[in-house]
């Protein structure tokens, strides 16, 4: 009896979970590629254990790969899972809470032997696969280890190597379940293990065996089939936030005809930007792994003085170390892009978890009056555009720019319709301003244009030698000045220069909903996906709500105050204690309601919907 095909679903959330050594990330990555090629929209998020190699089978060693794919636009990797694939007892225990009621569990029963149960802290060897505690779910316990071993019997691989193929069995089975072809993965395996044909053969066989198992085992009565999503026509690739930042930097350097100098000190979750840029050698990218965070930003400042597009990235603790040098960059008025891939804080905090608690640090976290433009990315693919924009502002306005991402965006991935290089607006360094030589012919390094931007004159330029430094400067000449009036003027100029950038950024728009909505949800950063999903769903349900995503935080878009004033109720969800809420409340003297969460986890759609409805119902009552 062939199973029936259920075509009712628009989107499905799957979590692959198992031990660090189970090939979970690889499995998730392959599934992602396959459904992308089919035409689904997808959002993915890997969840690595904090320890490099946690002991086998332990709760802390569980690695996960979460994804949501569908025939509709997908903005988050999903709240709760429809399907939970677990390779051992620990993976089930850690993730069961997030499985939907009645959801499907596919469990490798070999991972539930008494040893695994004990390590996973099941009391008295209670086995959830047999003790009916999972009766509320659609449980399929399969001895994947045994089936894989049987399939590969007679191969020249060791038992250990054979067992490593069991993730391919699982993947094959999931392809069958969601009516996807294993073709792309077979191609990938052949390519990846080109030099090891017996490994390639074993993986391919395990994959096919898993795929056919669905048909032959007859334990499954249903398969699923989802339609392709209505994505705009174009060429796509998959991208995560950190990769997109690296590409954004490389693209901006290319389109400004500058060399890219990137300096950084390894830190979770920003290191991947360094890894990516270190591989862009043929683009001429100079990636410098510095001895510490301070050296990273200082070397970038040196390179910027030399005429390179310079950037550095870190996470909260590293940004704290860089703050003195950011002040120097403010004084020197040199282009510099500083990226903060935020994580849970304070101090070392939660390095592998996400949070948005460095907004105040970005806006205010320097000694003295040291204004720096602050931009925030909204999603993995958005990282490219915002990074490009950060570079543009840095170069064309001669200023350090701080860009905020976070761990959720850094590792989250989605399809990206990448641009053609010629569609990227060229960036123009300011090489001269009117009157930059005085009547005696002397160069005035701090002479400004109408936007208050000074010229970027680099060493090697004859007769324009000049010295700049962190001491307060005399207006125009840049010479050291302790004059009280001069300090007032320079402080005001530096502030005004940043304020004027508001004229050079797009107007604020609503992402969803209209200006007559009963409630406006204002988001920044990675709350974007959950907020947009929640607001869209509520609008569909007849609730009059709107969503605004702020990407330019300093300066704010010039129309932001006016736009905000049109709404009676404003809700700001943030993964901090209400930092943007305070910023806009203070800036525009308006009342906003703050909705915060500090769990190292993103908002899920349900909690946002509940909050919004709660406020609206409360208002009616």
């Amino acid at each position: 009896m062939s199973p029936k095909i259920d075509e009712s679903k628009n989107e499905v959330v799957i979590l692959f979970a198992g031990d660090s050594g189970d090939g979970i990330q690889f499995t998730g990555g392959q599934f992602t590629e396959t459904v992308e090629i089919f035409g689904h929209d997808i959002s993915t998020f890997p969840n690595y254990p904090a320890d490099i190699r946690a002991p086998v089978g332990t709760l802390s060693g569980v690695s996960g790969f979460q994804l949501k794919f569908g025939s509709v636009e997908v903005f988050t990797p999903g709240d709760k899972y429809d399907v939970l694939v677990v390779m051992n007892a620990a993976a089930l225990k850690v993730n069961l809470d997030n499985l939907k009621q009645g959801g499907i569990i596919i469990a490798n029963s070999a991972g539930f032997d008494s040893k695994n149960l004990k390590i996973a802290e099941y009391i008295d060897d209670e086995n959830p696969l047999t003790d009916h505690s999972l009766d509320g779910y659609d449980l399929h316990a399969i001895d994947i280890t045994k089936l894989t071993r049987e399939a590969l019997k007679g191969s020249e691989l060791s038992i250990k190597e054979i067992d490593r193929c069991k993730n391919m069995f699982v993947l094959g089975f999931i392809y069958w379940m969601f009516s996807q072809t294993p073709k792309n993965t077979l191609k990938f395996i052949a390519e990846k293990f080109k030099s090891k044909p017996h490994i390639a053969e074993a993986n391919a066989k395990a994959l096919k065996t898993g795929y056919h198992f669905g048909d032959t085992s007859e334990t499954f009565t249903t398969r699923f089939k989802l339609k392709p999503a209505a994505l705009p026509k174009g060429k796509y690739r998959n991208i995560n936030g950190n990769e997109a930042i690296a590409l954004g930097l490389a693209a901006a350097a290319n389109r400004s005809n500058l060399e890219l100098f990137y300096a950084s000190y390894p830190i979770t979750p920003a290191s991947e930007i360094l890894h990516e840029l270190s591989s862009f050698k043929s683009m001429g990218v100079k990636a410098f792994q510095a001895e510490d965070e301070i050296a990273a930003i200082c070397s970038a400042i040196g390179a910027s003085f030399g005429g390179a597009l310079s950037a550095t990235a870190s996470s909260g603790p590293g940004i704290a170390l860089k703050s003195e040098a950011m002040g120097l960059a403010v004084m020197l008025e040199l282009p510099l892009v500083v990226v903060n891939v935020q994580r849970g804080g304070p101090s070392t905090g939660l390095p592998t978890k996400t949070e948005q608690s460095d907004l105040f640090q970005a806006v205010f976290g320097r000694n003295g009056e040291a204004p720096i433009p602050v931009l925030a990315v909204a999603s993995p693919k958005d990282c490219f555009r915002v990074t490009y924009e950060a570079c543009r502002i840095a170069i064309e306005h001669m200023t350090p720019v701080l860009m905020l991402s976070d761990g959720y965006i850094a590792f989250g991935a989605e399809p990206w319709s990448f641009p053609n290089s010629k569609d990227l607006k060229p960036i123009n360094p300011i090489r001269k301003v009117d009157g930059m030589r005085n009547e005696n012919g002397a160069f005035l390094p701090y002479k400004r244009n109408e936007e208050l931007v000074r010229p970027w004159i680099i060493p090697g330029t004859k007769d324009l030698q000049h010295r700049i430094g962190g001491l307060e400067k005399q207006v125009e000449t840049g010479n050291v000045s302790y004059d009280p009036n001069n300090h007032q003027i320079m402080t005001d100029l530096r502030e005004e220069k940043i304020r004027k950038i508001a004229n050079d950024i797009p107007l604020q728009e609503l992402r969803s909903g209209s200006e007559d909505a009963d409630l406006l949800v204002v988001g920044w950063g990675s709350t974007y996906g959950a907020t947009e999903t929640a607001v869209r769903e509520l609008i569909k349900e007849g609730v009059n709500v709107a969503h605004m995503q702020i990407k330019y935080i300093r300066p704010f878009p010039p129309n932001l105050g006016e736009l905000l004033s049109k709404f009676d109720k404003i809700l700001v969800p943030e993964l901090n204690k209400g930092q943007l809420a305070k910023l806009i409340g203070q800036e525009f003297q308006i009342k906003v309601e703050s909705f915060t969460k500090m769990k190292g986890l993103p908002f899920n759609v349900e909690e946002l919907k509940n909050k919004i409805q709660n406020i609206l119902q409360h208002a009616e009552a």
Partner: protein
Amino acid sequence: MLKPEKTNGNGSPLTAKDYATSQDVRWCPGCGDYSILKQVHTVFAALNVQRENTVFISGIGCSSRYPYYMNTYGIHGIHGRAAAIASGLKTARPDLDVWVVTGDGDSLAIGGNHFIHLLRRNVDITVLLFNNEIYGLTKGQYSPTSPKGKISKSTPFGSVDHPFNPLALALGAEGTFVSRTVDRNPIHLREVLEESRKHKGTSFVEIYQNCNVFNDKAFDMFTNKETKDDTALYLKEGEPLLFGENLTKGIRLDGFTPEIVSLDNGYSADDCWIHDPHDKIKASILTNFFDYGLDYGGLPRPFGVFYKTERYTYEDLMSEQIEHSRAKKSADLDTLLSGGDNYWVVK
């Protein structure tokens, strides 16, 4: 000895004063920094250094005011970070002639980390470390090079800190050019500066510099007429280690232990240690003349180039990697943006 060359691009060779700026020099009257500034101007004129291709980077401290007084490009940075700023600049722009001017507080206290990593990477930068064994700009606290027991504002009962031996530190940090000179010996200062400029890689020049306000005469014994012959040993490549009045004393190596011998007492110059700046082990012993002091019979303090060796520079290797990659595959932004795996969505 040094004569300006006659090739300056525009036909007129620069003189020492062409390297000065219009800024008033603001060191205390009598400060040793004036002498160093003057010698650099002189050497630059002699070597016809191109002002527009030269960059001076400094941190914070008295010495770090230096870039304001050089008519070149320059950055007066933040405390301790000159080496980091300069490393980035030189890596981005290997074509530039990059100098770091720093002090014992700037590079051996707050900037110690950048200092050692600069030497390790061997970025082609010349580091002039003005060592006055005191914090001058903050008005008189002891520094990491102040001797133990030093009475200063922050150590009224004497410092209990053991001082750094800057040259041993530089050698230990894999420095490829390690030297010492002193502000009050302008001829030697010029010679070492010239040598340092010839070296490809990080050139470390420790300059004993007198702070006449907060630590006057800290190095007096090496420069005053009464004592200098017996306390200062000037190193010359290929020549024996001789010192004392009329060079009547020498240093002999007994195994790995240096000892002072008297040349009128049965020893000749041929018995003495011949200076070989390419010998790292001997350089290491030389740097430790610093510590041996009176325990070893009062070894003199050496001045000159202790050690030099050729080693690849960081920026050269980085540029080579880039050239190598470019030769293998062409650089193209569109290829980069498209990634390896992309697919069409067609409707």
